[in-house]
């Protein structure tokens, strides 16, 4: 399965098992979403379970919060993560806080899905990775997926979770495990073991990282597309990197991270989002706080530059295998 198919499948399984699950968003109903992640749901479950919405992210999230407070389990799509900001107030001031401010009287179990990241020549408003704008907000959970198997299990877990979950889908890996070399032929998911997706229901617990590649030389903290890029860089540099796919950024699987860094003594943090105040800063700070005496070299961050994501120069912006590999060598002191 591709990641798109896995996401579609997770929706269908959730809707089949629990009639409180409703799915809506821009172009999500009849058309099945601009990336087709909800294709077929309206036909199968009817237009009361999966429907189109007006183009209003604030309205989508605001009404979804009301539905969740009523007792439904809305799973909504923001067409591109770059367009989530009109809903930002509803997410951070409302969804994130209903439970706390009402002392558990009202809750907002909703899932907000959105495609993130660049690599499709989308320019500055179809390429953003806003995870750090959600990880700063107490009350939210934030998930970033990197492959079909995880995507299905994590989306089911998100929909079933009793708290609001921000579910980020790097669009560059929707159709294949992008290795970071944009100039090479596209590899489809079918060739990758993580595209084997079981039928029916399964979940992957939120808050648990996955060791994507075990290794002893250095720890790479990654998520989304960069998991695959780090894999390429490890292969190309021959460094025995332990690549951790964080999967859930908040709450973070600190144990898995610290255990690895204690073992390797070195740590590289990679993400596609803008460097300054990105989630990599939190990772670096956390590792430094908890494994300081084990660190043999400074923790290095390789991230998107502190500029808008440029259309023509996206491959200069994207932290590809060359930059990641170079940083690996640097952390290794080579």
């Amino acid at each position, binding site marked *: 399965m591709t990641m798109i198919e896995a996401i579609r499948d997770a929706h269908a399984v959730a809707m089949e098992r629990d009639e409180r699950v409703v799915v809506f968003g821009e172009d999500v109903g009849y058309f099945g979403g601009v990336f087709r992640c909800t294709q077929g749901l309206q036909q199968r479950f009817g237009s009361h379970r999966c429907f189109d919405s007006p183009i209003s992210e*604030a309205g989508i999230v605001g009404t*979804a919060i009301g539905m969740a407070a009523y007792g439904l389990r809305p799973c909504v799509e923001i067409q591109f993560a770059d367009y989530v900001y009109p809903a930002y107030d*509803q997410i951070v001031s409302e969804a994130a806080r209903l439970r706390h401010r*009402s*002392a558990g009287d009202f809750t907002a179990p909703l899932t907000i899905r959105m495609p993130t990241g660049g690599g499709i020549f989308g320019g500055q408003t179809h390429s953003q990775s806003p995870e750090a704008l959600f990880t700063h907000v107490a009350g939210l959970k934030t998930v970033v997926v990197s492959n079909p198997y995880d995507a299905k299990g994590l989306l089911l877990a998100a929909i079933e979770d009793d708290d609001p979950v921000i579910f980020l889908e790097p669009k560059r890996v929707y159709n294949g495990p992008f290795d970071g070399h944009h100039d090479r032929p596209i590899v489809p998911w079918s060739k990758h073991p993580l595209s084997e997706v079981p039928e029916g229901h399964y979940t992957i617990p939120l*808050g648990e990282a996955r060791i994507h590649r075990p290794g002893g030389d250095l720890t790479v903290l990654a998520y989304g597309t960069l998991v695959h890029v780090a894999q390429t860089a490890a292969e190309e540099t021959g460094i025995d990197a332990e690549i951790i796919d964080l999967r859930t950024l908040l*709450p973070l699987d600190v144990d898995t991270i610290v255990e690895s860094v204690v073992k390797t003594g070195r740590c590289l943090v990679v993400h596609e989002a803008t460097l300054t105040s990105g989630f990599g800063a939190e990772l670096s700070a956390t590792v430094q706080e908890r494994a300081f005496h084990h660190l043999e070299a400074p923790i290095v961050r390789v991230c998107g530059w502190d500029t808008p994501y440029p259309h023509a120069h996206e491959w200069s912006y994207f932290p590809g295998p060359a930059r990641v590999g170079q940083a690996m060598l640097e952390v290794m002191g080579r």
Partner: protein
Amino acid sequence: MDGEQVGQQALRLHIPDTERGPGAEPPEVRFISAAGEMRRPELDEPVERIALMRKQMVRVLDDDGAATGPWDPQLTADQLRTGLRDMMLVRAFDARLLQAHRQGKISFYMQCLGEEAIACAHKRALHPADMHFPTYRQQGLLIAGGYPIVQMMNQVLSNEADPLKGRQLPIMYSSKEYGFFTISGNLATQYVQGVGWAMASALSGDTRIASAWIGEGATAESDFHAALLFASTYRAPVILNIVNNQWAISTPEDFARGASATFADRGFGYSIPALRVDGNDYLAVYAATRWAAARARGNLGPTLVEWVTLRRGAHSTSDDPSVYRPAGEASHFPLGDPIANLQRHLVTLGQWDDDRHAALSNELDAEVAAAFAEADAHGSVKSGHTADPRTMFDDVYAELPRHLREQRDQVGR
């Protein structure tokens, strides 16, 4: 005038009236009808025909205290006395807590002086299971709904017994059981949530409707548009209330209304039937609420209601209105006071008199005093009698995650 001819005139920006303060004229309330004048449209009357009544106002009680016209909800004397009691209890409650603020027992308070009829009659006119999405000036919804006032006081005191564990600013109540959605400090967010709740109820084939609240000032916020639009598109069973109390902190209604005649006018562009109602007339509020609720329950969609009233007091205990409010504004206000209006009506009907009024007033003061004594016995944030500070880590999530466990372990260490 023609386009070609006016091209070189210098442009100028219109800034709505900036004159305010004790020396200024009290602003005029626009478009007041006589009691009984406005007809009662069919529930499914086309929005154009309702919009033609835009400069009229639903009013039932005339100046002599008689109920008149097609909107008279025909309440029994008992219902009327209950309404009077509800409003007087709200007023006594507010007075006691304002006093508690002056006594330094609480950090903050907001009263609804002069606006009591709206929430009280609205709550009584709906079903107890309907869900309200209030702002901070609808304490009447809880009180008329029978929520224990001592619990409200515990919240306001942020004391050991506060059901919200000291987390929220005073008056930011929450009670799912009593159909009262948790109040947000962020204006307008609840309006679209109320629409979403109503959509969910309709999606579920339920019979409960939602009632969403907003101040006239806050209609300027973006969520107002999202709420009206989604309500219109999906014909959500929701009542969209705008409480026009003439003021948004220091700013008169002109800024949020803009050039339009009334706030009710906003409904037309979404084909949402909209009424303007005398918010100081308990009977008008009751009747208009029933009309809007019947539309919602009959799958006829949302209704917008502008309740015209006056914020008689300060915005909150944090501001000094004497800087911006014209002198004598309350006494100039043409719709009177909601309690006095209903009292006069009951007296006119021969169902009430001054003695009974004084007795009720004393009874309510005593009830409020007793409740306050009970709440006060649980201490307050000022006396340091609050929930355990470590409870602040609860309810951030359904389950306490590791990082919050670690943080909690550092509190009070």
